[in-house]
């Protein structure tokens, strides 16, 4: 243990911090500032914002608590941490809500000024937890965050209300001190953000510094922590959230395919940000169209695809339900569109700000008639970038709608991302239609793909629509055998995508006792759990689906190499249904539908249980 400025410095490998406060307390901002700074230091990290469905629930109540959980490490990590080591609680409600989840002996920094009778009442505390026994076993550090912020800012000329709103910067500064992080990145951000309001720059920086110095001088903290940089591959990095990565991925796909990007969309939590990010990219020739509803969103997308654009639409569960009829139109017209579905808690409005994986079967089967589409899923925030490109590639190459599934967890969560070099990104080849005289709208190549002649191109005039059509000519056809044939062709066309997607990889031994099979956003939790279990000597491997329809060609072979297959899903077993149906393979399900990502510890427990506790 080093010593520094009279305080001990303890080296840690892994820390999980939770910033929690009222919705109005700016916890999301605090958390993301801490993340950015931490990322710049070279730690691996992973975040989980968690905010109420209400915009500003009445101050001080439990359902008004907004939290930002952040896991950082000197190792490779994949989850926001199962339970926080440190909780910053800006008020009693924040404490009450997060207490059950803390690690034993966790450090709890509370803004003691908020623990007034009123505050306690709002949080439904009978007595003050700081004063009674209820926090026994934790390291409680009460700090006068509000008062000290007031003192620090009293000369700024800010109103008391504005001063109160700066207390998150005090807390942030304190945490920077505690974890040995520099103030500069945040100061730089404050300068940019409030460029036109010097008073606010001044105030926020004062609060930040006050917090930092308070840590340095106060007697409350005896130890300071250091988390070294992780050994990450060399390269340029940035922090990225899933929604941001999704947006960027489609802009990249547009540049890689040389097709202008069109997004028809309608706001819905937690997908709105994709529309928001993309509407900034006007100089990339991106057209965003905020439609009147989800149906107009997807239908305008189909209209743009008809006209030759890389056309996409973004939504979440209830919105996908509304789009299903139109996706069928894209299936039968064989137009390339991508539907991004950021899954949230259902059914119906459900838990709009929470995560879930329960739209897989809707994506697979939620359309009238036999209407196969390709389905892919991103497994982490940064993977959204790549899967956006992959989804675009499949759509454009195979002339098919593609559904890209992400979820609230990876959409809002963020992680450091090694930015690829331009040269690492493969061009998306969009085949040209044959010469006008050879062209027919439903001609097919060896992969059963029809040629795409963008509306408006001279010489390729043709008509398409939602009625069944004769193969090759595309004329409306009520012929029974043609219908059977077309149904088969549309199915096989999607199956043939298998030839162009990577095989399923196994993390761990290639065969053995137990294979954990996941898909989408559970990648991080499963990976951490499997790694931990393997460190303890348990024989467990992991395979993760990013391509779900079609599945990679080696899927059955991989699954059959293991005695047991465990499928953890944040639903009631939807991938399990697909696997059972396809391979008649009994799988063991693990399903918790709590609106939250899995804890890696619960998965680890389940694996160990399935291995009969045997780690030899």
């Amino acid at each position, binding site marked *: 243990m080093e010593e520094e400025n009279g305080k001990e410095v303890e080296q840690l490998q892994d820390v999980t911090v939770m910033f929690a406060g009222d919705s109005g307390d700016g916890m999301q901002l605090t958390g993301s500032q801490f993340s950015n700074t931490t*990322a*710049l230091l070279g730690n691996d990290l992973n975040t989980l914002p968690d905010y109420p469905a209400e915009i500003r629930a009445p101050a001080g109540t439990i359902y008004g608590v907004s939290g930002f959980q952040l896991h950082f490490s000197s190792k490779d990590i994949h989850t926001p941490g199962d339970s926080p080591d440190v909780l910053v609680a800006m008020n009693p409600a924040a404490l009450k809500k997060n207490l059950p989840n803390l690690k034993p002996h966790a450090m709890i920094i509370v803004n003691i000024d908020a623990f007034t009778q009123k505050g306690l009442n709002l949080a439904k505390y009978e007595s003050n937890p700081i004063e009674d026994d209820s926090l026994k076993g934790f390291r409680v550090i009460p700090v006068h965050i509000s008062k000290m912020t007031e003192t620090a800012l009293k000369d700024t000329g800010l109103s008391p209300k504005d001063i109160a709103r700066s207390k998150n910067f005090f807390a942030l500064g304190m945490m920077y001190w505690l974890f040995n992080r520099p103030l500069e*990145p945040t100061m730089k951000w404050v300068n940019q953000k409030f460029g036109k309001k010097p008073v606010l720059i001044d105030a926020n920086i004062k609060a930040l510094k006050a917090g930092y110095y308070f840590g340095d001088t106060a007697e409350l903290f005896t130890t300071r922590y250091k988390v070294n*940089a992780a050994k*990450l*591959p*060399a*390269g*340029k*990095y*940035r*922090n990225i959230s899933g929604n941001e990565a999704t947006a*960027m991925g489609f*802009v*990249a796909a547009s*540049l*890689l395919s040389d097709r*202008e990007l*069109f997004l028809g969309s309608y706001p819905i939590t937690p997908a709105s940000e994709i529309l928001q990010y993309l509407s900034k*990219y*006007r*100089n990339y*020739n991106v*057209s965003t*169209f905020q*439609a*009147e509803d989800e*149906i*107009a969103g997807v*239908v*305008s*997308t*189909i*209209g*743009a*695809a*008809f*006209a030759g654009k890389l*056309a996409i639409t973004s939504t979440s569960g209830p919105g996908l339900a509304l789009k299903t*009829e139109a996706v*069928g*139109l894209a299936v039968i*017209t064989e137009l390339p569109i991508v539907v991004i579905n950021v899954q949230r808690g259902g059914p119906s409005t459900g838990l709009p700000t929470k995560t879930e994986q329960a739209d897989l079967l809707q994506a697979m089967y939620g359309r009238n008639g036999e209407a196969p589409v390709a389905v892919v899923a991103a497994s982490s925030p940064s993977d959204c970038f790549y899967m956006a490109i992959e989804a675009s590639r499949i759509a454009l190459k195979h002339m098919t709608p593609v559904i890209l599934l992400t979820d609230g967890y990876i959409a809002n969560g963020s992680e450091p991302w090694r*930015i*690829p*070099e*331009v040269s690492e*990104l493969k061009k998306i080849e969009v085949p040209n239609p044959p010469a006008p005289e050879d062209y027919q709208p439903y001609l097919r190549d060896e992969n059963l793909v029809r040629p795409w002649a963008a*509306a*408006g*191109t*001279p*010489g390729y*005039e043709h*008509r*398409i*629509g*939602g*009625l069944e059509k004769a193969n090759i000519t595309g004329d*409306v056809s009520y012929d029974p055998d043609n219908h059977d044939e077309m149904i088969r062709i549309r199915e096989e066309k999607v199956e043939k995508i298998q030839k162009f997607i990577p095989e399923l990889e196994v993390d761990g031994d290639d065969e053995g006792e137990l294979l954990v099979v996941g898909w989408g956003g559970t990648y991080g939790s499963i990976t951490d759990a499997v790694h931990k279990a393997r460190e303890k000597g348990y024989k467990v491997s992991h395979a993760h689906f990013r391509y779900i329809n079609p599945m990679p060609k080696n899927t059955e072979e991989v699954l059959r190499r293991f005695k047991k297959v465990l499928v953890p899903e944040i639903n009631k077993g939807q991938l399990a249904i697909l696997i059972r149906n396809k391979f008649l393979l009994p799988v063991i399900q693990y399903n918790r539908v709590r609106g939250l990502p899995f804890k890696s510890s619960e998965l680890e427990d389940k694996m160990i249980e399935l291995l009969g506790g045997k780690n030899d």
Partner: protein
Amino acid sequence: MTDNTKINVEPLKPKDFSSGLDVRWCPGCGDYSILSQIQKTFAKIGYQKHEPIVISGIGCSSRFPYYLSTYGFHGIHGRAPALASGTTLALPDHPVWVATGDGDLMSIGGNHFIHACRKNMDIKLLLFNNRIYGLTKGQYSPTSEKGKITKTSPYGSIDYPFNPISLALGSNATFVARTVDREPKHMQQIFEKASEHKGTAFIEIFQNCVIFNDGAFDDVSKKDVKDDHMLVLEDGQPMLFGKEKEKGIILDGFEPKAVNLNDGKYTIDDVIVHHEKDESGILAFILAHMTDNPNLPTPVGVFRSIRKQTYGEALQEQIKNVTEEKGKGTLEMLLSEGNIWEVN
């Protein structure tokens, strides 16, 4: 459309706009006349085949695109305006024409309709209004009159109908017109005007469904009554009608009244003059509601025609401005955005 596609090309004839497919409407259906006037108009405008994009929903009327040799998209029920919105935003230089029915546009598609009008999407909306569901065999539609007996209203419909012109005006549509399947010349005139309009052009066409609602517009447009029951609007002209144009419309407050100029009580100077370009849309609204009054002739022609920036123009302008300001995006630029750090 880019001009070079027009260089050295022969102007097309109406029949060049036929796709050659057998037309499958019932013999006598009003849709035939609309199709033929569109083909004439397209030829007259000088379109090449690849220029106009023709989009529809579902219904008898929505089979329209199949019969034209242009690009065509037969969509799903009610969604034609949304489909057309995506297409016009993708192809700002191509005229986008939409063929739709009273069920398609006014019932299931009502929302897309009013939003397209509001946003001033650059599309032409041809409403084939036969006041009935044709394709599904005779249920009442949102433009069917109250009390109408149809398959789903065996004791008479209890719905008040929409006034499509009124709804379009209520949604701030920039071009609003009406024409009649029986009046080929008038139809062509209106189609031509619509083709010249930038922004949403809404045209209600009284269209006869011989099978399920035959004669629905006889009261207005049949030869023997049309002089007295149809008011042909002409910009800048007094609103006259009657065989000898001996009748006119005057305004009593906001209330339009039909008067006979031969009575000696009124002269042509009392008759109101039509102004398509009236910004307020009030006159158009008054004219729209003349159809509610059986004592007044039904106006046909252009109710309103004003120029406002279209949605697509605004989008292109924004793309241009932002690109000028920030530079044209490239992959390199994209990958160097954000807060970046380096690991060695």
